[in-house]
């Protein structure tokens, strides 16, 4: 007896069953094949895998027979030599063979089947997804807390702990939309407007920059005009006030931010017409007519007109009353514009075109919005010369605007029966010789000639209304209005495609008392209300009116329309 093979198995009850089998001979073959002395049924082994030989010198030699090696004390080998006294451990596939010496001197080979590396299958969890994916509960907590941390914890902590010049961090995700162009620099500075947590934006926040914005009207009258509103409005305000919303009449009622980059759209017409549509009801003493929509309900225009000649004061009168203007001048547009009239004949004879046009005298202001006042020296004197004498090559002319000087000049003038010079020019244009032509009555005596000059048909009285001031001759001061619509915006520049006479009936006006402003219906031929039908121009309140009242173009007007 040389070898003793001891197999250790575990019974179903967990008890170890040890069996010994003695083998004669000096060699033990190891393999999967059943005819091996040490039969190890493992598919990972060769049918004849190795031999274990007791050599002459008492050492145990282990040799791999097939192409595979074996484990020896944890290392993969093809040959191994083991002293039985010291012992060693061999590994063949899933079997462990401990080599040692038994008490009677036999070489003891203890065979133990190592538990299968594969985990026993648990059918309940094996088919389910649990374990293959992160748990639902864990994921829920993780995601929920991450969202709360990043989108609530960080910004609120930063907001509460920040030192004032620093901005709040982490609140970029709170913005409901980009700010308008004008407020773009406030992007990422939420706290500039949202000053106190849980408090709606106050007017003070707006006014800290918009210092010059003023109220539309006296607050008390505004409140009265606003009235109580509809049931829905009152309910809304009740709820809004419960949540501490300011208003009605707060900046944020009309001006909404975070509505997208670009210009802030002007408040809708409804914000105006809520009050102005039925203003008379809320404010019975108002002088303003109800205005709900330019196309449907709008009072007739009330331009500021000089009603009393010489006072310089402008009085607002409705065009419906057909007011007469008292500018202090006598002037017929028809006479000057008539293509077959004297003025036209003059320009034709001089080869200066077919006649006078509006632009011959009316020059636009630099911004194109309105017109410059008529300047006598430039616009009239080309034809209506004030020259009254010629000494050599020099003309003597009356000084425009100075009645006393005129009287003095005429008192020493030589009697003249002939025109000083022939040949007229268009206004503003002078002949090479600088010629003028005066069509004044022949001077006859100092006072008398001045009286003649100032009389109707005289050189002054032809255009001016004579007056007596403190016993002295004078003329009524002329009032030229540069802006008739004092509370509404109108720009000529935006109406370039129109002719002058399509709005101003100047070619039919024979007296300067005619108010040549177009009325409401004239404007309505192109402009309709906010929702204009096809072919008309949508014209909300903000096209002409400014809530915060400035002399400039309304804030709400698009830039291209301001020109």
């Amino acid at each position: 007896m040389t070898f003793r093979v001891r197999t250790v198995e575990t019974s179903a009850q967990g008890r170890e069953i040890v069996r010994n089998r003695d083998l004669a001979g000096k060699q033990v073959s190891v393999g999967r094949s059943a005819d091996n002395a040490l039969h190890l049924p493992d598919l990972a082994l060769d049918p004849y895998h190795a031999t274990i030989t007791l050599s002459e010198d008492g050492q145990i030699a282990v040799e791999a027979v097939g192409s595979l090696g074996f484990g020896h004390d944890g290392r993969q080998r093809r040959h191994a030599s083991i002293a039985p006294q010291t012992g060693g451990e061999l590994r063949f596939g899933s079997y462990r063979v401990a080599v040692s010496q038994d008490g009677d001197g036999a070489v003891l080979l203890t065979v133990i089947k190592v538990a299968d590396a594969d985990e026993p299958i648990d059918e309940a969890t094996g088919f389910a997804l649990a374990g293959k994916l992160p748990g639902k509960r864990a994921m829920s907590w993780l995601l929920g807390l991450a969202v709360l941390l990043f989108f609530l914890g960080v910004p609120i902590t930063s907001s509460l702990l920040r030192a004032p010049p620093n901005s709040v961090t982490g609140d970029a995700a709170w913005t409901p939309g980009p700010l308008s162009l004008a407020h773009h620099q406030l992007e990422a500075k939420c706290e500039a407007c949202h000053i106190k947590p849980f408090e709606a934006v106050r007017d003070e926040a707006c006014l800290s920059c918009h210092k010059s914005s003023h109220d539309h009207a006296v607050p008390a009258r505004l409140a009265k005009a606003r009235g109580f509103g509809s049931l829905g409005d009152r309910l809304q305000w009740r709820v809004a006030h419960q949540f501490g919303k300011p208003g009605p009449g707060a900046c944020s009622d009309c001006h909404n931010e975070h509505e997208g980059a670009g210009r802030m759209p002007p408040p809708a017409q409804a914000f105006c017409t809520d009050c102005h549509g039925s203003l008379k009801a809320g404010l019975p003493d108002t002088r303003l007519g109800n205005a709900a929509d330019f196309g449907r309900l709008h009072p007739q225009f009330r331009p500021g007109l000089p009603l009393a000649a010489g006072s310089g004061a402008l009085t607002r009168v409705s065009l419906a009353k057909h007011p007469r203007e008292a500018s202090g001048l006598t002037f017929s547009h028809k006479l000057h514009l008539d293509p077959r009239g004297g003025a036209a004949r003059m320009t034709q004879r001089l080869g200066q075109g077919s006649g006078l046009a509006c632009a011959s005298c009316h020059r636009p202001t630099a911004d194109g919005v309105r017109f410059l006042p008529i300047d006598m020296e430039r616009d009239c004197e080309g034809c209506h010369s004030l020259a009254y004498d010629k000494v050599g090559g020099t003309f003597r002319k009356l000084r425009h605007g100075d009645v006393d000087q005129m009287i003095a000049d005429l008192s020493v003038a030589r009697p003249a029966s002939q025109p000083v010079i022939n040949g007229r020019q268009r206004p503003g244009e002078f002949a090479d010789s600088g010629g003028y032509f005066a069509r004044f009555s022949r001077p006859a005596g100092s006072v008398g000639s001045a009286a003649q000059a100032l009389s109707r048909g005289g050189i002054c009285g032809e255009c001016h209304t004579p007056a007596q001031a403190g016993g002295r001759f004078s003329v009524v001061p002329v009032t030229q209005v540069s802006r008739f619509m004092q509370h509404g915006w109108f720009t000529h520049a935006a109406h370039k495609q129109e002719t002058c006479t399509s709005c101003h009936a100047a070619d039919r006006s024979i007296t300067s008392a005619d108010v040549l402003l177009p009325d409401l219906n004239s404007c309505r031929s192109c402009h309709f209300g906010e929702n204009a039908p096809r072919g008309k121009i949508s014209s909300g309140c903000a096209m002409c009116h400014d809530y915060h009242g400035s002399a400039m173009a309304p804030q709400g007007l698009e830039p291209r329309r301001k020109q």
Partner: protein
Amino acid sequence: MSLVQRQTSRQLDIDHEGFLRHRRFLWLKRAGALCLVAIVAYALADVQPRPSGGTWLGYALGTIGTGLIVWLALLGVRKRNMSRGGWSLKAWTSAHVYLGLALIVIATLHTGFQFGWNVHTLAYALMMLVIASGVFGIVVYATLPAAISTNREEMTQSQMIEAIAAVDRQLESAAQLLDRRWAEPVAAALHEDALAVGIWRRLSASQPGGATLDAITAINRASAEESGNPALVRLEALLQRRQAQLARMRRHMRMKALIEVWLYVHVPATFALLAALVAHIISVFYYW
């Protein structure tokens, strides 16, 4: 109504109506009416400057939406506590499905179609994710149970595993007679575990190759004289049985995964949504 009638009607109820058809689509009708009211209000309300969450209608829709979301999320609590009748879990589930779908309309109108990269749209997106995963869940619940049943052929899950194990034991003993050239692929096939695959392989419709299929292929390539070996013939038959069983298990796992996987989105996304909703509401009033 007599007790008998009530019992009969309840019996019918239980026998023939799923949560989708519960009480002749009662909750579908109610949810539809809610959507209709919201759409009409949105169309008629003249809010300035334009529809958004910050108008009176926006706040109203937002409040309704928040209430719905919280109530819908409570199904997770409710389902752990069964009861019968009008407030049965089935009625509750039916309402959960249809009111959840109505939320698409309510919440979208609440946004006024204003979206951006912010916490508000995050809440909306998470809500839509929850709804989409829920719709997926309804679809698989409606279609897959029949397919699973067909595939199983009245085998239980443990029977499927036992069937594989039985084939494996026979394979192991059959392969003992053969040399390493055949034993190796068989040993590899025995280690192929149908259940030890990740989520993507489980959800994938294609049947992957594997050690079992490789072993079959190797045997098919055997030379003419080898293939006459009866041990090899038996081995191939066993491997084919193993492969068929694996395919059944894989189909079973795929359908089971589909029927389970949506909840792994639905539930965590719901909690993320609740958190985003809290952040949305608080942030709106914090910077009011």
